[in-house]
């Protein structure tokens, strides 16, 4: 754990020294910032003791976050999400209320889980964190959401294969409505009026009613207008075309001899999804949990289908969805074991929110008179703070002559392999634990984006530092001509 002064702009103060004592802090600097009493604490999280936080800043530095943002719906978990409100809703539904693990639904060791309608992957995380060795196949047709699932799997180190496709009765293509501000209702069978009614029902019952629509004129016309506006905003639609495959194909193509849990949340396409299973693949499914929109008798239809296939079935409804047609159906093969909901293990803690709280306490105990920093951020390395004057020593590992976009490619590959701490000029490939496989991956990643022989393997031996490799990228010189340190 190191304390840094950012070249005259930061304060190598007793406060920073106290913060550096926290085991989740690898490095820390407190930077003076106009209008921020106590300064801006820039924290490099420890790769081991704050694994998830550390990975998240690395992924962000490598431009992987795109249009997503980091959300911390609880102080045990950090995820990439699209809308904070939705992330909170999904977390509460899946982790707190255990929506899918009721009525004896459980997971065996190293289960195979199919998460159909994965959204940002909250259920994939729930299954993966609860069952070590879980293999999750997540199906999500919306590119932005599929990207979130991939990112969340990587963030938490889980084995999740993401299939960016819709599921249906047969292979093909379909129109699909993506609601960017209410992604959980996106689907093939989106219907503006019907969806508005469901959302209205939810908002009138759910906690969101209090958070966003009440207050102006609770209970009156004002509230109704506000609700209409809110529903309209949330259901701004973005139609697109997406590929469709069948559930049977997914199971066969991935060689799944069994599916321990099939979870389906596909906004009115649930019967279509189940119709994509054939005799052979139905037999491989042990447990099913499906959200059913009970429109035109669909609940009874799904219950009937599952009973006919030999499942024991039951269903319930979330009280918050009492004004909506949404029900959850739970189905188990009689041979499948009944069990308690598997408990998720959050071992990548702390979140930034919790770390900030603990650091504030630490500071208050050690230096009661010192004002705590007014701003806290987690960063991959202690480069210059945004807007701060450039320090005397270049914090960017890229030599000035090299095209920044080429170095950015290397930086992304480098941080993906070694983490944020490693993004330093002098960091050496082999000292960071690089091995033959890592080298091949690094070379392949760089080649993919910059063309063949953008980096020659010899370079890793002649100068395996980040700066050395970055310099060679810019010059394009053959290995023999690279200056040795």
């Amino acid at each position: 754990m190191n304390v840094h002064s950012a070249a005259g702009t930061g304060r190598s103060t007793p406060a920073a020294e106290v913060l550096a004592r926290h085991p989740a802090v690898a490095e820390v600097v407190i930077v003076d910032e106009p209008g921020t009493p106590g300064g801006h604490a820039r924290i490099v999280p420890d790769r081991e003791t704050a694994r998830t936080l550390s990975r998240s800043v690395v992924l962000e530095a490598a431009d992987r976050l795109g249009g997503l943002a980091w959300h911390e719906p609880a102080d045990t978990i950090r995820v990439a999400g699209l809308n904070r409100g939705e992330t909170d809703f999904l977390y509460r539904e899946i982790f707190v209320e255990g929506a899918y693990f009721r009525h004896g639904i459980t997971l065996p060791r190293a289960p195979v889980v199919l998460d159909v309608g994965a959204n940002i992957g909250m259920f994939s995380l729930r299954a993966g964190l609860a069952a070590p060795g879980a293999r999750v196949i997540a199906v999500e047709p919306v590119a932005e959401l599929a990207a979130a699932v991939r990112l969340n799997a990587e963030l938490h180190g889980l084995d999740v294969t993401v299939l960016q496709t819709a599921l249906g009765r047969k292979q093909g293509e379909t129109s699909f409505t993506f609601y960017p501000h209410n992604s959980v209702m996106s689907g093939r069978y989106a219907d503006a009026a019907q969806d508005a009614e469901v959302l209205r029902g939810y908002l009138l019952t759910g906690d969101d009613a209090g958070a966003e629509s009440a207050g102006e004129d609770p209970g009156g016309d004002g509230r109704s207008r506000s609700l209409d506006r809110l529903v309209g905003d949330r259901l701004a639609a973005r139609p697109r075309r997406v590929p469709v495959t069948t559930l049977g194909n997914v199971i066969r193509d991935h060689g799944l001899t069994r599916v321990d849990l099939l979870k389906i949340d596909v906004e009115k396409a649930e019967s279509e999804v189940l119709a994509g299973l054939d005799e052979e693949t139905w037999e491989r499914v042990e447990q099913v949990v499906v959200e059913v929109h009970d429109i035109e008798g669909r609940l009874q239809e799904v219950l009937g289908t599952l009973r006919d296939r030999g499942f024991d079935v039951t269903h319930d409804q979330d009280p918050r969805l009492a004004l909506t047609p949404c029900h959850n159906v739970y189905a188990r093969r009689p041979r499948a074991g009944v069990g308690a909901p598997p408990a998720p293990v959050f071992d990548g803690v702390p979140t930034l929110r919790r770390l900030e709280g603990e650091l504030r306490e630490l500071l208050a105990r050690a230096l009661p008179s010192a004002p705590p920093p007014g701003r806290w951020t987690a960063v991959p390395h202690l480069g210059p703070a945004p807007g701060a004057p450039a320090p005397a020593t270049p914090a960017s590992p890229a030599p000035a002559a090299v095209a920044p976009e080429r170095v950015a490619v290397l930086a992304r590959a480098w941080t993906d392999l070694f983490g944020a701490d490693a993004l330093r000029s002098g960091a050496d490939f082999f000292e960071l634990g690089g091995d033959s496989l890592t080298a091949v991956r690094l070379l392949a990643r760089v080649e993919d984006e910059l063309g063949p022989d953008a980096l020659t393997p010899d370079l890793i031996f002649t100068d395996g530092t980040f700066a050395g490799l970055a310099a060679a990228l810019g010059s394009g010189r053959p290995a023999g001509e690279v200056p040795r340190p």
Partner: protein
Amino acid sequence: MTSPATRTGVAPGASPGDTLARALLDTGSVLRAGTGRLRVAPTSPVSAARLPAFQSLLDRLSRALGLPGPELVATSEGLTAPELAVGRRLAVGNTEGAGRPGDTAAAGNAVVPELDDRAVAETAHRARTAFPGPPLVLTARDGTPLRCWAAGPPDAPAVAVVGACGMPVGLTVNWLAALSTRYRVVTWESRGLFATGEGAGPGGPVDHSVEAQSEDLLAVLDGFGIARAHALGLCGGVVVALAAAARSERIDSLSLWHGDWELGDAAPKTTHQRDMESLLAMAARGPKQAAGLHRILTRPSTLDGLRPDLAHYLVHPYTTAELLYRYGQLNGTLMTTDCRKLLTARQPALVVTSDQDTTAHPAGSVHVARHLPAAELRVLPTGDHLGAFDARPHLVTLAEEFLRSVTDHPRKDT
């Protein structure tokens, strides 16, 4: 680890001399891979005073076996991954026998087996004639020499075992042993990757096309006077077996075990497959690129991910830069050939994979089985990729059941 009767090939109670001779032969392809002398270190402490005596024994046994003897060095510091793998297999300094971890001599006091010239000659003879015996060098249709083996009753139905590209015969010897009680089993080592003459090194450059590699199977059948055979492909060998079946009816049935398939967007690949593809593509680009990769791949840490009892086989194509370059071409071709065009082979086929194969994605095998006209698929609940080479009884039973169903006719010589 492997059973004494098969892969290590040493009967219980064998003398330390026999054990060392078998270990030398078992690592022979690596010892003969390049022109330089391979360095090996003792795996148990050997005092400096005793090193010359061990060196002398290694030299005498190697000479009698027709191999370039390794140079014994005091410590493993600075040795490459292939050198370490060979050293571990030879296990110089262990009292009991090569490659048996835990049998260590008291520090520095390892006993040098004493063998006179006659005993050396007899020991070497026993090692060379032990299963699967010395290779027969046959000529491929384009003149490339191939190291080949045959075992089992000459009149029995024939099985051609097609191992993974670039792997020494030792890796498939368990299959040869298991099947040769009932079948005439033949196999060969990949073209252009093994020393076939008296000297070391893999000879001149060779045609690395899938056509040439699959023609080799037919050339091996010709060489042993076999008209028709079942082709049993393992890992990348499935591509060679399937390509041969697609071009010749002399392959009358197929079994394709844990195949490493390129099927375009029809089936996903594992990270390992993608890594290997990148590696082979880079290595195949030219000797210079291969030399750079060779330096990286022969770092000792490469061994960390390899099964210790198989490491001395698995490192073979990485032993020299030239071998790596050729391996890039030969195996790179197999890994990137779109096999969908080969799925027309009408011969009865058994396709085997396992959910636990994290090396070659099981989805590839599933797709192949679904699209071959006459294939049956077996997805086993357990068994990793390398485990397929162990030829455990349940796999042998599966193979034999299928073979019985398709090879009920006696072999007819050409």
